[in-house]
């Protein structure tokens, strides 16, 4: 069994724990990630290059369809700021798209309403049945559906939820020939090599077929509806849209982001944990991840922010440990999961 998260050995500079894959500490207790032995630090040159390429790409493709971009909008602070950037800085005609996963904070929904009204943009909310979402989360929590090596910076439940977001955004973009899909991921959450990329559904579908097969075995044909794109649509669509994470191109702290979005009417929800500003299943997801792997899926991201001087180590630890028990218990009850079902991977 893993030790409690509170008395775990961590890097003295960042917050990566002794259970993180491939971690080693030097004689000062500083990890090999901080000592730049692994490729995690984003080179500023790379970002500058991506920025130029993104601007070119946007200029070349905008103004040709009903919308220039679908923005995957969770109501959290990062995607709120991404929406603001898309509309105000990049002058894009956007369609805001929200997946209601059944666990979104009511305050996040009211934030979505206020922000899209304030920015004057169209909004679509997609809500799979609560039964389906609970089933998806239950399987993702219990069945070790993803390979652990692909879960270093994301929990299994977040991965499943984001797969629906990505799939539905891609489907809509292809139906409407929208050239861009924008998401609010930040560096630390994703590697710099994925700031922007062109979608390739066939390859995606092939690589995750075993995962979808496991979901289908328990959840039936709804899986296809929410997580797959038909061959007809692929045939008739005019090529794949690009995914762009605009926030990665900005040099901005979390406090500055909040300051920028407050005038839109955005309010920080109180019923979420230290690592989320919209989702009430997050604490549970982290809890499961720590039980299985011994480290939090947020360690890599928060450590990145510390190294970039965007967050202090103490602030990061505070976020990491702000995991309200009542939320974990609420989700456990909703999904009918107890601790005895959650075993070390």
């Amino acid at each position: 069994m893993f030790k409690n998260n509170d008395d775990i050995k961590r890097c003295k500079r960042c917050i990566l724990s002794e259970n993180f894959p491939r971690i080693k500490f030097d004689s000062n207790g500083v990890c090999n990630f901080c000592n730049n032995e692994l490729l995690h630090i984003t080179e500023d040159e790379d970002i500058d290059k991506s920025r130029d390429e993104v601007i070119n790409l946007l200029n070349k493709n905008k103004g040709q369809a009903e919308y220039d971009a679908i923005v995957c909008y969770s109501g959290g602070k990062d995607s709120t700021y991404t929406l603001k950037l898309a509309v105000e800085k990049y002058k894009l005609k956007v369609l805001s798209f929200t997946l209601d996963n059944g666990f979104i904070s009511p305050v996040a929904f009211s934030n979505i309403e206020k922000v899209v009204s304030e920015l004057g943009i169209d909004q679509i909310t997609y809500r799979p049945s609560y039964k389906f979402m609970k089933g998806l989360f239950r399987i993702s929590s219990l069945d070790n559906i993803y390979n652990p090596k692909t879960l270093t910076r994301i929990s299994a439940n977040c991965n499943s939820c984001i797969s629906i977001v990505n799939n539905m955004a891609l489907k809509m973009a292809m139906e409407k020939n929208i050239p861009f899909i924008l998401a609010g991921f930040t560096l630390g959450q994703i590697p710099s090599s994925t700031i922007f990329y062109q979608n390739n559904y066939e390859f995606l579908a092939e690589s995750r077929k075993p995962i979808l097969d496991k979901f289908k075995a328990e959840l039936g044909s709804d899986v296809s509806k929410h997580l797959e794109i038909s061959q007809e649509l692929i045939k008739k669509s005019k090529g794949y849209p690009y995914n762009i994470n605009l926030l990665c191109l900005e040099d901005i702290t979390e406090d500055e982001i909040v300051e920028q979005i407050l005038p839109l009417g955005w309010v920080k929800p109180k019923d979420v944990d230290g690592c989320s500003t919209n989702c009430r299943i997050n604490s549970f997801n982290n809890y499961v991840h720590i039980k299985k792997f011994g480290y939090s899926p947020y360690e890599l991201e928060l450590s990145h922010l510390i190294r970039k001087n965007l967050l202090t180590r103490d602030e990061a630890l505070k976020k990491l440990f702000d995991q309200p028990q009542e939320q974990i218990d609420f989700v456990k009850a909703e999904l009918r999961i107890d601790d005895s079902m959650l075993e070390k991977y």
Partner: protein
Amino acid sequence: MNTEVLTKEGIQVDLLDFLCRQFYVDIEDIALDRSLVDTGIIDSMGLIEIASYIKKRYAYTVTNEEMNRDNFGSVIKIVDFISRIKEG
């Protein structure tokens, strides 16, 4: 762009070093003749990361059509693909 003449061995050593660092795996974890996705080293986003590595290291932009199992189905196939684009 790196102009040195690269052997397949050189391309492979460089690729394996990248994979180990980027995906936090040990070299022993990587089966050279099997799919990196099937063996759980990467997911579909990992393929995007490898394409980005090829772009940065060899100044070649992989097209959507080239993103297939024949070219990306294993380390050996990726090395062959890189050596083909280097010649081409």
